[in-house]
């Protein structure tokens, strides 16, 4: 069974009057599903609706129509979700610095999530030990625990937000351009971590990105969005070897590679 499923999702940010005048939907009838142990990448140009789909999954956006199902049961806005569902779906955003409270230390940022979700807090050892391990997992020095976001680099902030998301032992991680702004050497470290977690913890990942090279490295399946609609969903191998839709072919043709430049 799917861990998360969206059915016939429709989101429109325009007023009702504008909608009657035919302003297009930001998301227009999108259906997709993520299995408990797979990485589904969503690709497409900016404005194609990728982030809006992710926000619906995370319960940060209410669709005009359609449903989001978690473990087969419909879930609504984040505030109305049972605590267990809220814990199980974690999101990592593109702009890391903006998603971390600048006045809190990294330690209190992570500890706060455990105060909210007691069930995920470490029971068998001290919180400090668990925080140190999480930071090491994302390639940070445990000493970072005492620092605040403004004194960290962009790449370090991004890893802190990934550590915070993982602290809750989620079943689904929604990554919206989570590695796009990182330098390549840091990027491969995070990708390794995510691939390892997926293999070891039954973590599903909804991975939104415009970097097709990264998609090819970590995705099991790929959904291609164009102007609010899904134009193609395929296994990663099929999509890159035998793109079915002309728009997919256009995206692949535009992508640059180091080789053959």
């Amino acid at each position, binding site marked *: 069974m799917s861990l998360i499923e969206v059915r016939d999702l429709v989101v429109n940010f325009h007023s009702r009057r504008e909608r009657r005048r035919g302003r297009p939907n930001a998301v227009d009838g999108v259906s997709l599903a993520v299995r408990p142990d797979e990485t589904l990448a969503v690709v497409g*140009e*900016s404005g194609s609706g990728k982030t809006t789909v992710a926000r619906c999954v995370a319960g940060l956006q209410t669709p005009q129509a359609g449903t989001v199902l978690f473990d087969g049961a419909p879930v609504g806005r984040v505030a109305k979700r049972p605590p267990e569902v809220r814990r199980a779906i974690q999101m990592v955003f593109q702009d890391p610095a903006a998603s971390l409270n600048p006045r809190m230390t990294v330690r209190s940022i992570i500890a706060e999530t455990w105060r909210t979700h007691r069930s995920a807090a470490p029971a068998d050892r001290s919180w400090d030990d668990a925080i140190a391990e999480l930071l090491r997992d994302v*390639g*940070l020095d445990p000493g970072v625990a005492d620092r605040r976001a403004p004194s960290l*680099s*962009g*790449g*370090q902030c991004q890893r802190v937000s990934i550590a915070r998301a993982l602290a809750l032992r989620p079943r689904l991680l929604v990554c919206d351009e989570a590695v796009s702004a990182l*330098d*390549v*050497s*840091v*990027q*491969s*470290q995070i*990708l*390794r971590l995510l*691939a390892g977690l997926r293999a070891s913890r039954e973590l599903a990942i909804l991975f939104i990105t*415009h*970097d*097709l*090279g*990264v998609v*090819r*490295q*970590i995705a099991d399946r790929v959904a291609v969005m164009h102007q609010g609609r899904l134009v193609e969903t395929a296994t990663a*191998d099929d999509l*890159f070897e035998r793109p079915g839709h002309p728009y997919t072919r*256009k*995206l*692949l043709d*535009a*992508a*640059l*590679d*180091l*080789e*053959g*430049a």
Partner: protein
Amino acid sequence: MTDALLQIEHLSIDLPGPAGPVRVVDDVSFAVAAGRTTGLIGESGSGKTMTATAVIGLLPAGAEVSGSMWWQGEDLVTMAEKDRRRLRGRAIAMIFQDPQSALNPTQTIGRQVGEILRRGGMPKQEVRQKVIDLLDRVGVPDPRTRHAQYPHQYSGGLRQRAMVATALAGSPQLILADEPTTALDVTVQARILALLRRIREEEGMAMLLVSHDLRVMAHVADEVVVMYAGRLCEIGPGREVLSSPAHPYTRALVVSVPAVRSRTAIAEPLPGSPASPADRPSGCPFHPRCAKARAVCRTEVPQMRQVAPGRQVACHFPEET
């Protein structure tokens, strides 16, 4: 390098920091040849933007610059501010990463593109015509209507085109472009890169392109300059450096780039984090992360030396090229 348009020699930049000045660019030398694209590569904080900003003379207040930047027999470092202003936007123009913040939201695109022309005393009607021609050349559709629109009415890709038009208005000999396509979608990015290449060929101008995106570099840079923690690592022809890097750091960057047209495994990450110029490691700044490091790397700063024709590297134990 007899045809160097810009020759940077031993450039160092100190910025004021909470614990005293920080050397963010340290003893950097390279040349930008006329009519060619030189790519400045490096990770966040490596000093790329500071180097480009020094050329155009827009460093933050309190910055201390030493060394020389030779431009047509004159040293930009010691040149009087009024003479630098004369160059800025005319002989040397800059395109920024984020056209959103570089463009003024309250002025029409046309007004901003034509600013340098108006300041040069060109009559109003002529400016209008020239602006429309410029927008047309950079591929803004329907420039007769669109020159009167505001930045918010332009998409990200169109705004970047408008920025390019603004830079071209002064008929520059050198364009500095800082991450000009980083904020753009791949399809838009490909079109902007093609535009920059076309314009460079048509106008024969030189470009100093700053980017952390090696794929972009491989496609547009004739020469590349690789920096780490404010220092030079490697200089050479773009294609050669990116296909057979001589410096272990360049090599680590190259193998980290995921391919689209073939399936590659996720690269073995470098240990640790990029060094910050505020606490730059002793000797070779890359030594704490380098698999090839030996004792000498911790104590002695490797100097740039030639390893093959046109290729220089700062490493005690460079790769075979």
